[in-house]
């Protein structure tokens, strides 16, 4: 399977601030990749680098087989939607569809019109007078009408109500199922993405903590529950992502499939949310990360 996105050591620095450090990810074709991380983790920076709107300070990347560049052929394949969902305030949805038709060689005006009509969004009212949710739908419809090979969506559902979110994500899933489309969408609402995403990129503190197919990642992680005791043996065999110790019990989230022989430990499968939250709690350390101790008794 070919990779639509492949980066190595990608970094972005704004004056003194590291927005993204040493980011190495691969996103295969046809995936819906959830880009997750706390605020300020570098999600927007990564998407802007992939779209070519920003240039990296270090590292390399291949997006759709080439470096992101100012070239109509490359731009035609990228659908990027910024978090602010920028639209011309005085222009109507129809005006925007007209702009798209003039600025793109490949453009499905009918698709955008049909989609907005079915959502009961007026095509003839200035964008500035639409509600936030309506504007988001217009911006999303315009991004989809471009028919790109790679969709980069920055918090696309944040402005939508729960029903609209579900509809939109279903639309994305359909579009991907039709083939030829790969999606990376960021959010810090994991529950939204769990339904449609089959790939995960987890950023925390400007670094990649996890990147891979969700199923594979879940298969690699386990929760070990056991008595309060020394964990050195386990740390040797596996990577401990998170350790929670109470007076009587130790709960470890571990990565790796080396067998645990000690019968005191009970191994359990991990949920996506549990796994993600464990990684999100980590600070600037690169993955695999240091031990964190939460809720230890005095």
């Amino acid at each position, binding site marked *: 399977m070919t990779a639509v996105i492949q980066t190595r050591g990608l970094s972005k620095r704004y004056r003194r601030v590291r927005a993204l450090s040493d980011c190495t990810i691969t996103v295969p074709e046809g995936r819906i990749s959830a880009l997750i991380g706390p605020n300020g983790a570098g999600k927007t920076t990564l998407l*802007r680098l992939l*779209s070519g*709107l*920003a*240039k990296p300070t270090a590292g390399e990347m291949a997006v759709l087989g080439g470096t992101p560049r*100012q*070239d*109509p*052929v490359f*731009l*035609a394949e*990228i*659908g*990027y*939607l*910024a978090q*602010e969902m*920028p*639209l*011309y*305030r005085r*222009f109507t949805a129809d*005006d*925007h569809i*007209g*702009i*798209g038709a*003039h*600025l*793109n*060689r*490949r453009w499905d005006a009918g698709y955008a019109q049909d989609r907005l009509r079915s959502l009961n969004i007026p095509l003839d009212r200035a964008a500035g007078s639409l509600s936030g949710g309506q504007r988001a739908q217009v*911006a999303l419809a*315009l*991004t989809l009408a*471009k028919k790109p090979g790679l969709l980069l969506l920055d918090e696309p559902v944040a402005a939508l109500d729960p029903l609209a979110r579900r509809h939109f994500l279903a639309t994305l899933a359909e579009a991907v199922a039709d083939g030829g489309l790969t999606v990376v969408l960021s959010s810090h609402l994991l529950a939204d993405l769990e339904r449609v995403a089959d790939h995960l990129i987890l950023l925390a503190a400007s670094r990649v903590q996890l990147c891979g197919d969700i199923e594979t990642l879940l298969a690699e992680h386990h929760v070990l529950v056991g008595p309060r005791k020394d964990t050195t043996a386990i740390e040797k065999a596996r990577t401990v992502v998170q350790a929670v110790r109470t007076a009587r019990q130790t709960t470890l989230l571990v990565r790796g499939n080396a067998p645990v022989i000690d019968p005191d430990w009970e191994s359990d499968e991990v949920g996506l949310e549990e796994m993600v939250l464990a990684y999100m709690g980590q600070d600037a350390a690169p993955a695999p990360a240091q031990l964190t101790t939460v809720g230890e008794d005095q």
Partner: protein
Amino acid sequence: MTWLVWRQHRAQFYVGAALLAALAVLLLITGLQMASQYHSAIAACTANRSCTDQGGLFLGNRAVGFLVIMTLGTPVLAGLFWGAPLVAAELETGTSQFAWMQSVTRRRWLAVKTGWMLLAAAVWGGVISALVTWWSGPNNALHLDAFNNGRFDIMGLVPVAYALFAMALGIAAGTLLRRTLPAMAVTLAGFVAVRAVIALWLRPHYMSAVTVTYNLLRGYTPAGSYWQLGQGVLDPNGHLVPVPNGPAAFGVAMGYLPASCAPLNGGATKVAPSCAQALGRFHGVITYQPAGRYWAFQGIETGIFVLLAAILITVAAVVLLRRDA
């Protein structure tokens, strides 16, 4: 892209066209009146051979004349209201991110927008200048002042170059500052400063001025619409005599002259021989740019401002294309 530019700016276009049309109507009506007034005055004075001094003939309506002088300020309007927001407003509202994520490169986006805006600025400056130049024809013939500061700046080619410069300054300021209002402020201040520096300190030196020393009693006036840069009186040693601050004759303070010159200060026209002899040791001096250099100066000044505009557009393009969007 052209379609988008038109769609975004057609309201501004209509406003600009309406202003030009209003100015055209006003100047055509008053201009035609003035032209006929001038021609009948010339016909009348030719009939009774009194055409020596027409300078006192007042042409035109005072308010319209004021409006014409005010066209000094019209070029900068292009930079303020069309140039400064061109890029800045899009960066401010984020719509540039919408435009740049269509299949159009940033280079082409900027080139097409800037190209049309510069053309609009040239038309704006050119139409106003053409109207003002035509309207001022009789006055120029009468007062021979087309080369003077303030008149030179509103006629001929230079208003086109000023408008191009103002537009480029607005676009560059907007691109660098990314905000419309500060860009407008910088455009206004920058335009006024550059125009003033060039008009007051650079323009007089485009070509070395002509200096003529002449007999005070005979006097000397260069031909046509010359541009006078300086005038004075030289004493017998060739030093400039201070400008008289009291009784004087032919621009020489009475203190330098014999008593026989005193009546001249009182308004007498006959010069006593001893006074003439004394005055003969002084010379008048005039420094000026001859009328024949008018178009050369227009060309040089146009070149300077077009070059400045080109530099500003280049800076804007380099910054916009290198910087993260």
